């Protein structure tokens, strides 16, 4: 029997992205630069997060024209973002044929209580998480891939590091718990007991876990791999830098060879200015994207 949209097929797609870099692009030209640099996928957007931040107002799903332009430009997978809880935006993206949907806090949430029921979809979803409980709630809703939320569009890695350390530290804690302690921990974390049991058995999340939100340099990407990320999303970091093609290649190579520090030194030479970046303490609480969703 031929089955589409099984959890193995959806999660498997993310497994194929491991060790790779997924890049935000806003048109066909950028998509081709990303593919040429060795990106494993591109995220088709109308604006990169730094520009979404600058523009303010309500950020929504991209114009399908942009998404189709990118899909026609490259042979690698194309992802696109839907607002948290916006079932119809997600259905539209699925109908367009995108390969992965990011139910993303970078866009303005459409639902302040509920995320999309992702199990209903044939196309797989990636969702952001700040800790293990949030990651497992998204997986319970059908997410096939998790990424840190970080703080998108800041070029500041500190929040992504915090979220990755949270998830990894909580996994290590769960591995040392007895099954009765796990029931209480499931209550503490606000996640299903069965998923927590699976985490204990596997010693990792049951899906791929990428880093996202603030990666700006090759060393940032390598740091996230060192902390246990399976791969890296780079949003504003590439096309807000001085030399995007060179930056993109350097980040791809630093992600693959993340323990080769001599190489990362070479890759970091003469890259030109990275994106300027924002110190987190200067961001008002209302300007923080990571607190969107629950």
């Amino acid at each position, binding site marked *: 029997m031929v089955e589409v949209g099984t959890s*193995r097929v959806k999660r498997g*797609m993310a497994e194929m992205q491991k060790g790779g870099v997924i890049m935000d692009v806003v048109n066909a030209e950028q998509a081709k630069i990303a593919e040429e640099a060795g990106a494993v996928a591109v995220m088709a957007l109308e604006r990169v997060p730094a520009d979404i931040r600058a523009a303010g107002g309500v950020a929504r799903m991209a114009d399908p024209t942009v998404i189709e332009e990118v899909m026609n430009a490259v042979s690698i997978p194309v992802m696109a973002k839907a607002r948290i809880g916006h079932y119809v935006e997600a259905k539209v993206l699925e109908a367009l044929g995108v390969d992965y949907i990011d139910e993303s806090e970078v866009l303005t949430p459409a639902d302040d209580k509920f995320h999309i029921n992702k199990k209903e979809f044939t196309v*797989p979803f990636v969702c952001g998480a700040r800790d293990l409980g949030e990651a497992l709630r998204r997986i319970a809703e059908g997410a096939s891939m998790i990424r840190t939320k970080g703080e998108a569009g800041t070029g500041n890695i500190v929040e992504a590091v915090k979220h990755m350390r949270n998830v990894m530290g909580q996994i290590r804690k769960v591995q040392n718990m007895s099954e009765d302690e796990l029931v209480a921990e499931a209550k503490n974390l606000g996640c299903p007991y069965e998923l927590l049991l699976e985490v204990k058995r596997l010693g990792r999340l049951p899906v791929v876990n990428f880093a996202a939100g603030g990666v700006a340099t090759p060393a940032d990407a390598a740091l996230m791999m060192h902390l246990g990320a399976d791969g890296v999303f780079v949003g504003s970091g590439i096309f807000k830098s001085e030399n995007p093609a060179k930056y993109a290649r350097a980040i791809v*190579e630093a992600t*693959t060879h993340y323990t080769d520090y001599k190489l990362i030194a070479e890759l970091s030479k003469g890259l030109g200015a990275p994106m300027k970046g924002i110190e987190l303490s200067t961001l008002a609480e209302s300007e923080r994207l990571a607190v969107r969703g629950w």
Partner: protein
Amino acid sequence: MRIGVLGLQGDVQEHVERLQDIGADPVIVKRPADLAGLRGLILPGGESTTIGKLMRKYELLEPVRDMGRAGVPLYGTCAGMILLAREIEGGEDPHLGLMNIRVARNSFGRQKDSFETDLSVRGVDGGPFRAVFIRAPHVTEVGPDVEVLAEFEGRVVAVRQGNLLATSFHPELTEDSRLHRYFAEMAEASTPAVQ
């Protein structure tokens, strides 16, 4: 028995686990020096464009091609099949170009068309194999020296040419290690060639 898994990008860990299941000694290959002492090498699933570029940049393309020519078994799954093919439809440059096959990338459609199904593979006993196809390629032409091991709806999805093995699907994503065992037997039967 040391069997390598090309570890530049893709589902490397899943192949490592299947090799452990059958008692082989997996080695993750990122640099040419990692190829020493290998009896076989797996080219995993992932993005063939990414892996192809990194193989060129990190000087793995030539040594792996030499291995294949010297008779060391190579097994490509999905992206790995594309790396092995002599010809890629659409005019893209071939990578290793070792196998006498022509392949079409993403030939079953986009991710929403990805699927799993039961498939009989010639030479693998014990009933059908649960085959997972993810934005999979298929073989559109085979040379006279290529043996077709499996077809799905009239499309060739598993092939062997002497020491070279390729599947459009991902046996590493299931718990079924029969294809890895099949490959390990190919490796055992060959003489160690990597110095």
